[in-house]
């Protein structure tokens, strides 16, 4: 069964302000460090940090904690479930990073000759579109279908039976 995308505010109610402050702190520190690195080592090195997984450990730990607490409210040990939820979230981030790649390519190619606001806006839209598209492909099982087709093709080429 496919789960539709929906908004669920329960995570906000269960979270502490310190957890949001921590993510603000990490985000701010990485952005400031990227500026310092650019000053000392130039834009080539600093650019690498623009895709640094700054808040990834904090977010993944938060997800693990929420899932674990939810299961334990129902009297179930939520350790495994918490880890699985963090794993699924990480898989989503891997898909989002493909969108991040497209963001970088569009910005690099179009920024020198066009309005910065328009280019950054278009790059952000492209990140969202590509990320959601890859997520949809995975949800619809296109990856699995392609893998099965490649395996079937390989069996045919090696002389195996093809039904």
């Amino acid at each position: 069964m496919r789960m539709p995308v929906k908004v669920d505010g329960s995570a906000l109610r269960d979270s502490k302000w310190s957890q949001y402050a921590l993510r603000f702190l990490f985000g701010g520190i990485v952005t400031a460090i990227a500026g310092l690195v650019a000053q000392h080592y130039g834009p080539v090195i600093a650019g690498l940090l623009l895709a640094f997984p700054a808040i990834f450990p904090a977010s993944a730990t938060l997800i693990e904690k929420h899932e674990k607490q939810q299961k334990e409210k129902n009297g179930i040990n939520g350790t495994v479930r918490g880890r699985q939820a963090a794993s699924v979230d990480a898989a989503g981030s891997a898909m989002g990073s493909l969108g991040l790649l497209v963001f970088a390519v569009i910005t690099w190619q179009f920024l020198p000759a066009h309005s910065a606001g328009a280019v950054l806006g278009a790059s952000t839209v492209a990140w969202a579109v590509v990320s959601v598209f890859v997520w949809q492909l995975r949800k619809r099982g296109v990856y699995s279908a392609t893998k099965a087709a490649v395996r079937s093709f390989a069996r045919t080429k090696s002389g195996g039976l093809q039904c």
Partner: protein
Amino acid sequence: MTQMLIRFLAGGAVVSVFALIGDVLRPKSFAGLFGAAPSVALATLGLTVAIKGASYTAVEARSMIAGAIAFFIFASVVSWILMRYPFRVLWVTLGAMPLWFAVAFGLWSVALK
């Protein structure tokens, strides 16, 4: 110093907004997309364009391609390990950080240096 403070506040704010959006979305795999949102990039690139100009900023964006590839490998490995092994999430995510550095700086030394 003022510029660093502005970067810190802008970065913290943009990262927090994307993190909040990710927190309220379900399913988890969809929410995870926001873990790779261009939050630090938006804060940094916007300020860099204003201070250093578009050509300088485009060089940063070019390097970001290597960072994004490193992020893809990092997140995929973290997801794979967490699904198969009973390790704590914090240790896996922190333990995989050197992988991000290795891939990003490896690509830098091969293609961008």
